[in-house]
């Protein structure tokens, strides 16, 4: 049942979902790229930050 036809008055509203999806994919690819580009030794230093309390 369609009861929200009034939105059709905005021209090209159907583009919204597609634009959002594309945006997310691009974003996701970028993040994944970042993730792999981090140096291994850095990672192991950062991931140990919570453990190293060094209260002297």
């Amino acid at each position: 049942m369609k009861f929200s036809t009034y939105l059709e008055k905005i021209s090209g509203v159907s583009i919204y979902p597609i634009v959002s999806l594309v945006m997310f994919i691009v974003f996701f690819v970028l993040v994944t790229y970042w993730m792999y580009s981090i140096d291994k030794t850095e990672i192991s230093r950062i991931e140990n930050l919570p453990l190293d309390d060094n209260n002297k």
Partner: protein
Amino acid sequence: MNLDKFYYDNKLPKFFAIACIFWGAVGMLLGVIAAFQLAFPVLNFSEYFPNLAFGRLRPVHTNAVIFAFVGNGIFTGIYYAIPRLLKTPMWSNKLGNIHFWGWQFIIVCAAVSLLMGFTTGKEYAELEWPIDILITLVWVVFGINMFATIITRRERHLYVAIWFFIASWVTVALLHIVNSFEIPVSFMKSYSWYAGVQDALVQWWYGHNAVAFFLTTPYLGLMYYFLPKAANRPVYSYRLSIVHFWSLIFLYIWAGPHHLLYTALPEWAQSLGTAFSIMLILPSWGGMLNGLFTLRGAWDKVREDPVLKFFVVAVTCYGMSTFEGPMLSLKNVNAISHYSDWTVAHVHIGALGWNGFLTFGMMYWLIPKLFNTKLYSTKLAATHFWIGTLGILLYAIPMYWSAFRSYFMMKAFTPEGQLQYQFIDVVQTVIPFYIMRAIGGTIFLIGVFIMIYNLVKTAKKGSFVAKEEAEAAPLTKEYRAPSNSIWHSFIERKPILLLVLSLVVVGIGGLVELVPTFLVKENIPSIASVKPYTPLELQGRDIYIREGCYNCHSQMIRPFRYEVTRYGEYSKAGEFVYDHPFQWGSKRTGPDLARIGGKYGDAWHFNHMLEPTSMAPGSIMPSYPSLYENEIDRGSTNSKIHAMRKMGVPYESGYESIANDDLDKQAKGIADRLAKDNNIKVSSNKEIIAIIAYLQRIGTDIKLESKK
């Protein structure tokens, strides 16, 4: 290299922890009371304490659990973890204290004002405008303290937990401000700036993201800090946590409309909500697995350490509710779950399991540390663990059951095409489930009391370490990143950039979702027969909001045969253009009221509000005797009409000065009719008259249209 010597402050974490546990117990106790009220309406004590009726108590429960229990839990973790992750004390102790006492003051104001009936009528954002402003101020104080700490840090890298805190802070600020646009009518009374469909969209964009950025992302920050700490090993995959973070904050913000499926919300917005909700499974499960895999090979530890046990169940519940959530945003599943106890079960898997158990685990780990001792009794903690788990199960299972029972009853037709069951039949069927749920909640609460005992004993046994000494080298000005570390480690060294990026990422989602709806304003097909409320109806509507009727009643009929047959024609977007705030509701403990106008005579409502069981034997609705005593607040009519017109409701200019004449006339008409036709004597200035006027108006405008 010179090492700086400095001290971590443990006082504020301790304060926040105490507040967290105290408000947690209070909030859960209120939940248990509210749960029993639904099964035994006499517990509303309406004659003695009209302030404690379900409609007013439930918002206090939800607000207490979300903002007082979880809120203080977040701050406990943040004030403990951030200094240690950044090797610096919190920037300002003074701001920290203002934050702490300010937040507790807000909580007290919230509880008192909600019980007094001051509410905006928007779920999880019920607090009135002066408190909204206070929240903003305290939030800013917290933000300043957190960012100043981050900027003066001695550790270049920001551990992922801190990103979660930063993103949560900025997004909550954004949500709070956008959703709280309201126009004050008087001290402690305001109207939402938005109306109808727009108000609903903004509200659920807010509501959903309050779950996301208050109940989830900060707690993920806690998970990424305290889980490795308790297990004494780094997180399973730090790389995965990066993807978890960015995809989660990107996706979450879009999913709000899944609370409004099948409503009068535009269809594209509904689909968008569904699509993004489904995608949310991926990062959520990435996060859950990351948490659980951190314990790989350490399961023998889990068996012994209650802290880890609590964490494992918490993270599992996180996984369960983030799987269930997307399922609930599939339209056909949502058709069953929406307005039903399923939603209630869903949020409690999250609240009791994820937030509750993570908090308990954190406390069992933290309190012994703060008091430099061992936990008083591991055995009691294990008992708490089992009792808590049992409580969750006993809570959730009856709710799922009740949801399906009522769904099948609601949609059952006789062969002749009549509805097989009255609404009251459904109410009667689910009462036993309500009782079981209340027992489940009670059991969970007993577990909390066991924890309190255990922690108090622990604290007594040890001695409080107010300050912990630490040493670290200051950051040097010139830093050269390793040549092969690009991009991300760059961002991650720049907290402000991280803040801005988070804001941009959530901002995109917010904009794409909200802006079209505002552009649409002119496009909502105005239904010519839909007119502003009369002054009396407006006053009645405000009483409806004050009493929290929306906690049990929806005003939104979905386009299903079984709803249209039961309640009447399905709701249209154009019908709500003057509803500041919207009152669509989210739970049908009572029937939908979107077409209640004209369904019964005035006398029916008069008797029903006084004693619901007199008209509907077996009803669990509270009675409202106070409405027959209180007088309509005529003094506010003027400013209410004025405020409404400011927001575009077409009252003629100057109408506010004569509005009370119309109000009196309409009220007298109702009182006279009651006296003449039903021999009911009531003076026309009582609140009951206003609420009858409002109820008789709801959903009737559109009938005029079809008569033409």
